[in-house]
Structure formats: structure tokens, C-alpha cells
């Protein structure tokens, strides 16, 4: 029963994915500039025949609808195409970049949650106190500080001056764990490689703080406001009336019910992190999807951008699906797929 509902909700994502696919396809082709021309760069003595040959090699000379149809067919078969700018299979490129991005996004969101959850609860419980006001001010700071600026400041403080943490990259040479999943932290645990684990965690700290600052601020505010709301609910008073200890009332009764909006926002933020962290990836030399995709746009690498956006859309849809399932766990009254 529940499974069917979830399945149904998952199927509802199909038209969205199709929409994403078509939108990005058309969108890329609306951009001025020619991928072959960009690929050839400054090469001199290029003949028109050479250009035409390349164009037809990448099926760029077909009419648009034919290209779209064949692209959709290939996607259905699981083939995301060939990246002109990186001379490689798009699927392979994405598989390499995705773990890096996901690892960073998860670390960022974990840091964000680690800050936001306690802070959100405390500020709600101590409503209008000094700690409440000052953390609200901090949260505005988090929202209004550009990530690249925060990033470079962190690097200057923690890497250049204090020399505590590395400036950039995912791992020090020689400490890259052997490839299992592509997630360095996970791989080093799986292979029992302790130095590598320490190293990859050290590399994660700064970028995930830079990336997590804004979501932390947003989630803190959301948790605070929904906690304020649930703390006023009858069932919270009732839990106290049953003699339940105050901390248990706050965690078990208020917080759990306050989580729903936080889940929604966290889901959206994760979605945002997966697609919008190009800036942080550049600053921290992080080989992820953001750089891949922005580079793809600049070089009009159609298949690459299309593939990346599809993956992004898929992650987004999945994250939302998980959020949906979480809702029903948090509030059994809700039916999967019905938005709060």
C-alpha cells in the first residue's frame, strides 16, 4: 500500500524528468555559439570541410527535432552521449564528478544541520533572548555573504595563516584512497585507510563550511520558526501534563513535528547545493559537477550539459521523493505525494 504510493510518487517524476530533458536540450541550442567552432579554438588553416565533417560527426547538422528524438532515444538506452570538449563519454565524466559533488554537498548539509538543528531549537526555546537575537543576526550574515568571498577568507585564515587545513583539492597526493565508490571518505573507510580518511576529511572542512553557511542560516530560521509554532501546540502542553521531562518534550514531541518544513527546505537546499556550487568548487579546486557543467556551457558542450542537468534533475527529484517519504514518517497523517 505504502510502497505503491511511493512508486506512484516516483512515477510522477517522469514527466518532470522529460520536461527537464527537453528544456535543457532546447535551451542549449538557443545559446549563441557553435560547439565545433569552440572546440577548434585558435586552430588555423581549418577548412570548412573539416568543420562540416566534425559537425556531422556529432550529429549537429540534423534538424532540431531529429536531434531531440535521437537524443531521447539514446537517453532511454542509458547513453548520455559524447562530450566534445572533453573527448570522453558523458556518462563516464558524470560518474567521476558526481561523487565529488555529492560528497561535498552532503558534508555541507551535514555541517549546516549540525549548526542549524541545535541552534534552531535553542533559539526557539529561548525565544527573544540574547542568544536568539545574535544567532538571527548571524544567520543573516550567512545568507548575505557570497560563497566565494567566504571561501577565500577561510582559506586565508585556516590555510595560509594558521596552516591547519589544506587550501584546496580533494586529497593530498599519495593519500587518495583506492577507488571503490568515488566518495573519498567512504572509500578510505571501506579500504581501512586511516591516513586517507583523515586527509579527505581535512580537505572537506573548508569547502563544506563555505558551501553550508547559507543553508545553515536558512535551516536555522526555518527550524526556529516551526519550533516556535509547535511549542505552542496542544500536544506539547499535553506531553508536559503527562509528566514528560522538558528535554524529552522538546525533542520527542516538539522537534519531531517541527521537522516537516525543515525537511522541505533541506531538500530544496540540497538540490541547490548539487547544482549551484560551481563557485565553491572553483575556489577550492574541487573536481565536481558544478565546474563540469559551467565549463560545458561555456564550451557549448551540448551532451555534457544535457547529461549533467539530467543527473541534477534526477538527484533533485530523488531528494524530493525522500523528503516526501520522510514527511509521512514524521506525520503519518500525510499521504505520500501530498505536499504540506
Amino acid at each position, binding site marked *: 500500500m505504502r510502497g505503491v504510493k511511493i512508486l506512484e510518487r516516483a512515477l510522477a517524476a517522469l514527466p518532470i524528468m522529460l*520536461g527537464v530533458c527537453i528544456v535543457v536540450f532546447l535551451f542549449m541550442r538557443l545559446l549563441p555559439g557553435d560547439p565545433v567552432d569552440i572546440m577548434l579554438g585558435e586552430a588555423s588553416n581549418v577548412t570548412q570541410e573539416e568543420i562540416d565533417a566534425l559537425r556531422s560527426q556529432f550529429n549537429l547538422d540534423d534538424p532540431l527535432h531529429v536531434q531531440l528524438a535521437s537524443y531521447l532515444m539514446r537517453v532511454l538506452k542509458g547513453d548520455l552521449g559524447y562530450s566534445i570538449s572533453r573527448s570522453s563519454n558523458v556518462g563516464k565524466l558524470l560518474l567521476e564528478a558526481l561523487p565529488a559533488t555529492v560528497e561535498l554537498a552532503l558534508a555541507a548539509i551535514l555541517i549546516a544541520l549540525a549548526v542549524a538543528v541545535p541552534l534552531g531549537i535553542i533559539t526557539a526555546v529561548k525565544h527573544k533572548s540574547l542568544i536568539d537575537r545574535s544567532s538571527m543576526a548571524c544567520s543573516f*550574515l550567512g545568507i*548575505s555573504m*557570497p560563497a566565494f*568571498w567566504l571561501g577565500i577568507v577561510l582559506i*586565508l585564515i585556516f590555510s595560509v595563516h594558521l596552516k591547519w587545513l589544506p587550501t584546496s583539492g580533494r586529497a593530498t597526493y599519495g593519500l587518495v584512497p583506492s577507488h571503490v565508490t568515488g566518495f573519498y571518505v567512504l572509500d578510505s573507510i571501506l579500504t581501512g585507510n586511516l591516513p586517507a580518511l583523515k586527509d579527505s576529511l581535512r580537505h572537506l572542512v573548508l569547502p563544506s563550511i563555505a558551501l553550508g553557511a547559507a543553508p545553515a542560516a536558512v535551516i536555522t530560521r526555518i527550524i526556529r520558526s516551526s519550533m516556535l509554532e509547535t511549542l505552542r501546540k496542544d500536544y506539547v502542553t499535553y506531553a508536559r501534563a503527562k509528566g514528560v521531562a522538558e528535554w524529552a518534550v522538546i525533542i520527542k514531541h516538539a522537534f519531531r513535528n517541527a521537522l516537516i518544513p525543515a525537511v522541505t527546505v533541506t531538500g530544496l537546499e540540497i*538540490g541547490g547545493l548539487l547544482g549551484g556550487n560551481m563557485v565553491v568548487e572553483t575556489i577550492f579546486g574541487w573536481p565536481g559537477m558544478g565546474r563540469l557543467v*559551467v565549463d560545458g556551457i561555456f564550451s557549448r558542450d551540448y551532451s555534457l550539459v544535457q547529461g549533467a*542537468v539530467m543527473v541534477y534533475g534526477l538527484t*533533485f527529484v530523488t531528494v524530493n521523493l525522500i523528503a516526501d517519504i520522510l514527511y509521512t514518517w514524521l506525520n503519518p497523517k500525510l499521504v505520500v505525494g501530498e505536499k504540506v
Partner: protein
Amino acid sequence: MIRGESTQASVRRRLMRLRLRLWAESAGATLKRLGRNKSAVAGAVVVTAIVLAAVLAPLISPYSPDKMNLNDRFSPPGGEYVLGADHLGRDVLTRILHGARVSILVGLITVAISIFTGGVLGVLAGYYGGTLDTFMSRLTEVLLAFPYLIFAIGAMAMLGPGFWNLVWALCFKGWVEFFRLARAGVLAEKTKEYVEAAKVLGRSDLEIMGFEILPNIVNPLLVVGTLRMGTMMVMEASLSFLGIGIPPRIPTWGSMIQDGYRFILNAWWLSTFPGIILVALVLSVNLVGEGLREVLDPDLQTF
């Protein structure tokens, strides 16, 4: 009564005056209550100061924002240039003041357009439901599932540089949030009994949406709007980082932070001062927004 004027017109005028008075009174009361909220007052003071400074920028600062003194590059703050000079020898303070205009306009206009578009579509979708709603909701989901930056970069590539193009690029996804808010608001309001009462009275759908429901859902839109103003300004900075955005002659805080951050090692003031002022403005706008919310809509729990 003016001679020749119909009774109806005079009544209308009287009513209008009365309404104005009432409106002024209620606005006065609101302001008074807002005045009791200390942080809102502080926020309002800062916002006003920044806006005034932006408007009066040419009078305040002795320099022109695009006047280069290449020999004065990287003059540190405190000397001839109060907040220092940038890498092209332009006065940072002057540029911050002039930048305020564009930054605030970018924030205001994008948010205004987003609220308007999102609001109107959200109200329609929420009120009529059905195919329109399904279509719009799906569309917004597609947009949400589409990485924002990709669109912004692409749009700027397609449209070319320029203030309005930037505004369009920022609005593209900005309206979605307001659409959702408005739609949720309408869904909650439209089953309320005052809407039914209006229907029984025979009010048209347009009247109901515009006069009955809209005033009740507009507050959350405005509150979130104030928050998003800051986000938009930061977003503009990120686009500058990627090398697209507003023409360089027009200083914006975002592009100033971006230009300056490369020199943070030897000239920290280039990016730090615009950064501080950006945070100050966003913080103040939100303090005012929060204060307004508490006065207008104590039940509203948007963050």
C-alpha cells in the same frame, strides 16, 4: 460642493478623503507599533541611511565612480581615499555609494517582478486548480529541477550583458518560490468562509481573487520578498564571479566584492567594505521585514 459636480462625485470624494484618513491612521498606528520594536527601528535607520546615501551619492563623494587614477591604485583606507582606492585607482567609498543604486535596484526590481509574476500565477493556479494548476505546478518543478546557475549563465549569454538582462536572468527562477507561496496561501484561504460569503453575494472570480484573497496572502510574499532581496544581490555577485553580469562601468556591490577578492591578500579593503555594507543592508531590510511581520501578521511563521 463644487457647482456642477454630481452628488455621486462629491460622495466619492468624501469617501476617498475618509479612506485616506483611515489609511493614514492605520498606517500611523502600524508605524507606532513598529517604532516600539527597537531592532526594526535600527534596521529602518540603516536602510534609510543607505538609500539616502545612494540617492545623494554625487553630493557626498568628491569623486566620480568611474574616474580612474591609475597612479593611486591600492591606496589604503584612511588617506586621501576614506575607504581606500581599488585596483584601478577608483575611490571605494564612491563606488560603494553609487553601487548602492544598482544593487538596491537589482534587488528591488527582481523581487518585485518575481512577486508579481509568481503572485499572479500562484493565485490563478491556486484558485482555479485543475489543469492550469497541474501544468503550472509541473512547470515549477521542472524549473526547480533545473540548476539555477546554468540558466543564469545561459540567459546572460543569450541576452548579452546589461542591467535588464541580469534582472530577467535572476527572475527566471525567482518567481517560483512566490508562486508556491501564493498558491499555498490561496489554497488555504479559498476554503475560508469569507470567500464563500463573497461567492454567495455574487462577486466575480476576479473580484474574489483580487479584493478578498489577495490582501490576505500578500504579507508572506512581502516578508519572503525582503529576504530574497539580499539573496538576489548575492546572486548578482556570483554571476560577476563567473564573469557575466552588469557592464563594468556601473559598480555593483557584487562585482566590487568579486573584483576585490583576488586582491584580498594585499588589499583587503577592496572586497571587505562592499561586503560589510551588503550584509548591513540585507540584515536591516530583514529586521524591518521581521518587525513589519510582527505588527501586521503576528501569526505568520515564515522564517
